[in-house]
């Protein structure tokens, strides 16, 4: 009866600024201290005793990490403590980063989206997280902050293995930056789950297509997967198959096969590996088709 268990004992600290957070983790004790963002995953992990921190550093009071800001270069900057609900209510995301809006809307229900944060969804490093694949197809950069300073890196390099990130113990994910969307571009995130709501992802496929000025040739394709491997990942070999090509069903088959050979999904009670591979094959094609259709329909509108 895990669900009735109380949380393990811990000491709680509630910093108000990013500088305070950085100094609290500057010692860098990994299991001893835990950063708590929204907590919709972390609280459950503690209840199951998968994580038993001595000290919890709650980030909800760090107001400077809660923002969605349009940048002068046409990009978008999002604070790590922005809730999924705030993402959904940001006009810039609805209008210019539709894949992110579509993805956030498929996670949980209002109760969870009012608590869960974009930073927590990324830093939890779970292969089933839905925002990281969508963000990877948008070529997101992330900022890691520490008392030593800050550094930027592509999100696609953030997850070296299951449940881990390349962030040092004294660093926290503080900001996500999305580049300005290219003309004739569109993406979609297809989340496959049993109940169509309030359910864990069996396989999630994010696709993003950028077309040449002719509105037909694929200049760039980005593919990223949830639950396609022990971490969320970009299938860059599969992407290369379609680059510079005209869109067509034959080449789409080749992309899907390449994506399958880059994937290594696991077998669990939710679905076995073979079934997940079939999903990856089918959903990759469906996601690219939809993205291509919506990118090519923009021709003449810009």
């Amino acid at each position, binding site marked *: 009866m895990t669900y009735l268990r109380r949380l393990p004992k811990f000491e709680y600290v509630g910093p108000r600024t990013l500088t305070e957070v950085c100094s609290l983790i500057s010692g860098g004790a990994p299991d001893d201290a835990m950063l708590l963002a929204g907590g919709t995953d972390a*609280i459950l992990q503690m209840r199951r005793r998968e994580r038993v921190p001595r000290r919890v550093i709650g980030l909800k009071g760090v107001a400077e990490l809660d923002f969605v800001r349009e940048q002068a270069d046409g990009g978008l900057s999002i604070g790590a403590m922005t809730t999924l609900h705030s993402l959904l209510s940001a006009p810039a995301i609805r209008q210019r980063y539709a894949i992110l809006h579509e993805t956030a809307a498929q996670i949980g229900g209002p109760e969870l989206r009012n608590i869960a944060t974009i930073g927590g969804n990324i830093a939890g490093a779970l292969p089933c997280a839905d925002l990281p694949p969508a963000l990877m197809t948008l070529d997101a950069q992330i900022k890691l902050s520490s008392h030593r300073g800050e550094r930027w890196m592509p999100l696609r390099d953030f997850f070296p293995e299951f449940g881990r990130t390349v962030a040092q113990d004294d660093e926290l994910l503080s900001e996500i930056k999305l580049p300005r969307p290219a003309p004739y571009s569109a993406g979609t995130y297809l989340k496959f789950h049993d109940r169509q709501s309030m359910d864990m992802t069996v396989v999630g496929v994010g696709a993003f297509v950028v077309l040449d000025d002719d509105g037909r040739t694929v200049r760039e394709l980005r593919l990223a997967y949830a639950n396609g491997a022990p971490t969320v990942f970009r299938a860059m070999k599969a992407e290369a198959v379609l680059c510079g090509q005209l869109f067509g069903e034959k080449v789409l088959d080749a992309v899907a096969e390449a994506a399958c050979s880059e994937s290594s999904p696991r077998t669990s009670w939710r679905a076995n590996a073979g079934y997940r591979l079939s999903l990856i094959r089918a959903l990759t094609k469906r996601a690219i088709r939809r993205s291509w259709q919506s990118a090519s329909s923009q021709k003449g509108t810009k």
Partner: protein
Amino acid sequence: MNDLVDVSLQVNGVRYDVAIRPWRTLLEVLRETLGMTGTKRSCGEGQCGTCSVLIDGEVVNACLYLAIEAQGKEIETIEGRPEGEPVLQQIQRSFAEKGAVQCGFCTPGMVIATKALLGDNPQPSEDEIREALVGHLCRCTGYVQIVEAIQDAASRLARERLR
């Protein structure tokens, strides 16, 4: 470690100064420390919605929220303000009249979620109502009546405002 921490919680417009342990969830503190057992405990993992409360007007799962993090925020529960709350009362009347209550266990969470929904969207469509309730389970499966109750509450509250 001295476990107890003094916190001040604002619940239904009343301030409560209590000493709690930092690992206690808001749900545990509401039910066990403050004795407000209207908010129910069931799945403990954010699936069922029976523990829903409002924090600064937004509906959240109290089982996934540390009580210590609810300090400085306005918490609203199914108990409502001591002086009575017309909106909450209308939703409850509509639930009763439309047969939306069978065993009643999910009802507090449903009512609280309805208050949040109608606050943002006073005239929701059926799809919007169902979307707002995806995080709520009714094991008596009385969803049709629940949707009807919410539509009834929305139209009565709209008439109320016109008057």
